[in-house]
């Protein structure tokens, strides 16, 4: 099978890689690009643990072919903090104990970030539906929803 040479912007850096046409973005991120923050929970787009931002939209990296991201901008959890300063969502997840095992957390953070960009003042219900593609088996979602509500308030300039 012929390989493809791909160039994409990953977390702000121009990044080159070579992939098979049937390889997923998730395989390349976790493999060649050593960005293992995107987790492989199912490989079929059902758990959301591999959610990354693809040209501003949240996607399951396991359902995107690596070859599709040529020329695109990809953001992963590794690029979320600004240097040593955590993103408000990351901060609020810690403050609200919104993670237990933490394996779903990178995907949920990305999905929440994309949600808040579209809707900076979501209701509880909007957050629950916005995160419905991201499975968490530990928390029962309660503290995750509260963390997103609080992060949204802070990002709007109304810290709780």
């Amino acid at each position, binding site marked *: 099978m012929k390989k493809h040479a791909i160039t994409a912007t990953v977390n702000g850096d121009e990044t080159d890689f070579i992939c*098979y046409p049937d390889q997923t973005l998730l395989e390349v991120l*976790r493999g060649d690009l*050593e*960005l*293992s*923050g*995107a*987790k*492989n*929970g*199912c*490989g*079929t787009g*059902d*758990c959301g*643990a591999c959610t990354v931002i693809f040209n501003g939209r949240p996607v399951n990296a396991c359902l995107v072919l690596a070859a599709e991201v040529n020329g695109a901008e990809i953001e*992963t*959890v*590794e690029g*979320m*903090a600004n240097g040593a300063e*955590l993103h408000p969502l*990351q901060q609020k*997840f*810690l*403050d*609200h*104990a919104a*993670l*237990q*095992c*933490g*394996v*779903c*957390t*990178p995907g949920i*953070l990305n999905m929440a970030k994309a949600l808040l960009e579209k809707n900076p003042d979501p209701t*509880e*219900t909007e*957050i*629950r*539906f916005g*995160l*419905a*593609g*991201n*499975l*968490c*088996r*530990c*928390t*029962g*979602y*309660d*503290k*995750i*929803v509260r963390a997103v509500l609080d992060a949204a308030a802070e990002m709007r300039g109304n810290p709780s």
Partner: protein
Amino acid sequence: MNEIKRDGSGTNYKWVGKNTRRPDGVDKVTGRARYGDDMVVPRMLHGRILRSPHAHAKILSINTSKAEALKGVKAVLTSAAIPDHPLTEPPYPPIINDLHDISRNVMAREKVLYDGHAVAAVAATSERIARQALKLIDVEYEVLEHVLDPLEGAGPDAPILHDYQYTVGVDPTPDKPSNVFRVISGSRGDIDAGFAEADEIVERVFTSQPVHQGYIEPLACVATASEDGAVELWTTTQGHFVIRALCAKLLNMEMSMLRVTPSEIGGGFGGKNTVYGEPVAIRLSQMTGRPVRMVMSRSEVFRASGPTVGSHTRIRMGAKKDGTIVAAEAAVHYQAGAFKGAPIGRAVETFFSSYTIPNIQVDSYDVCVNRPRVAAYRAPGAPMACFAAEGVINELAERLDMDPIDIRLKNAVRDGDQSLMGTTYGRIGLVDVLEALKSHPHNAAPLGPNQGRGIALGYWMHGGGLSSVTAILQDDGSLSVATGNPDIGGSRSSMRAMAAEELGIDIELIKPIVADTGSLAYSHLTAGSRTTFATGMAVVNATREVIEKLRALAAKKWEIDAENVSWEAGQAVPAPSAGDGLKPLSLKELAGMATKMGGPIAGHSEINAGGAGAAFSAQLVDVEVDPQTGFVSPTRYTVVQDVGRAISPDYVEGQMQGGAVQGIGWALNEEYIYDENGRLLNTGFLDYRMPVASDVPMIDTVIIEVPNPNHPYGVRGVGEPCLVPAPAAVANAVENAVGTTMSDLPLSPPKVLKAVESVSGAGG
């Protein structure tokens, strides 16, 4: 709303009972934390396992030559490469009960016993080649009849999985093999006389389906075998010491040759207590001389790793007019999957242990069927028992026109009462839990149309056991605390809080780590809600040993007796009588001088912790049933639980909330769907439908603190009791909304719709 009801003790604590930022938190929100399949090792090969497409079949032959010939394939393995362990081989307590079964579960030998059973494995230079190689392995099967249901499996005409298995615990000893491995009974009083006293008797049959733990991180490991016989294993597990023992015993290795390092664990819930790919990865690494990584896909996790049991329970309970329960009996079949080991002992224990019922009879059957070998799942054996027992109590309350909380209070066990298994309860918080639930605003809130309210009470006896800890004082005055328990839900926060409280220093100066099997003495699994209790106790002991050494060091410095030095708020303080001019020495000052004055300081503790005791969780849930579709939405949920002491309240609440939502899934959606050939159809998260954020409401919690007298900070444990009553409470709420009994889980839309229609049909 979350609240804590404290008993008044512990108000002087600085760190215990306070919410602090977890030490592993930043790594987990930045993607830096390394889980099972995040490990990459130079020259690593990729292992994959070929699995049976049949529910039950003899393996006639396996031809691996074509796979071996594929370029990039470095090794192909069948059960021939794994040592056999005869039935007669003695167990290795307390870790391993049956190497014969575990070795056959890891790699099928004579027969395949379920769809997904491992039959061969390959190691190749890429995942892609490994997948191709699996397709080139020819396995010839003779397909046999299969059985999936526990009651059918126990029947006289069922296809027999193991022709060597004769039921244990029945008289006379059977002369024919059976799928029933064992019968365990428990009784007290006179069951017939008890029912003769009853004014009201409820008899029902309840069934529940096997459900998977549903951890989001699939099973994954990397094994690196050296030419000198040493093996290093990295794996996602709830107990690396157990994994070491299992792998070493299965592969006839000396345990000293295997070092196991646990990864961060992406959920376990009991499901990561045993081995699947680990022994296979080790053998492939030994065969190839290269590291081998073995990661299970999600469909492999569903097909081949252990869910909890499915159950069939016939239950009868009788009470007097005043609500006094006088007799209860249950006959329960738990399906163990392909190999014996359903938690029927815990079933006998948990069925009626919340109540002072004088006459009890429980008979339980451990039944093998053609499903994956069961594993533990959060209070193994208890939620399905609770579902049946609480179901009949709710019906009794209704028939006697009693409040469901009052009937429970009337029969609740109190301090000094005895469980069916003969345990005398010490200080327990059951009455406190029920009273808090009764006075909770949720209990008085009005219900809307198509809504119903359910209640259930769960009991669980926590584990203690073997834990080892080393606490190392560093030169800068910080304390490294190494435990042997993988941190599955925030236990490092609790370990840190207890050490900081003992030492009297800032919590950020305590650095908890999870150490590998070569660095500590044996520590049992992170399971049985035991870690904060047992390992926490060892943390306290080890920290106290450090304090003793610090007092001795200060005494040496001051040239006084150590008896004249006390430890207060993070510093050594001389007794006023010890002499003038002595100023307290801080931990930091002492740490700086330790290496110059006698040597480094560390404390350690290796214990077998006892006295964890019983814990109770009571739950109230409201649901709304869509009469058009039968879809059930929980609208309000309250969990009240006695945890002894909440060391890290945020994470205690998180356990209670997570347990409740797992119970919602168990009650409403989750089940395994097989085709007529015994092949699993729903092998992914799309069709094995666990609760998502939009399915559930906020989960309110009330933490009750009735401190456990057997723990220095009163810890009882928290992780398991919160799941126990959840399926029962949800099912009861659906019954209440629909207006008829619902006894077969899951209460999925088709079943609920049918019930709705039967009620409206009867009414109209």
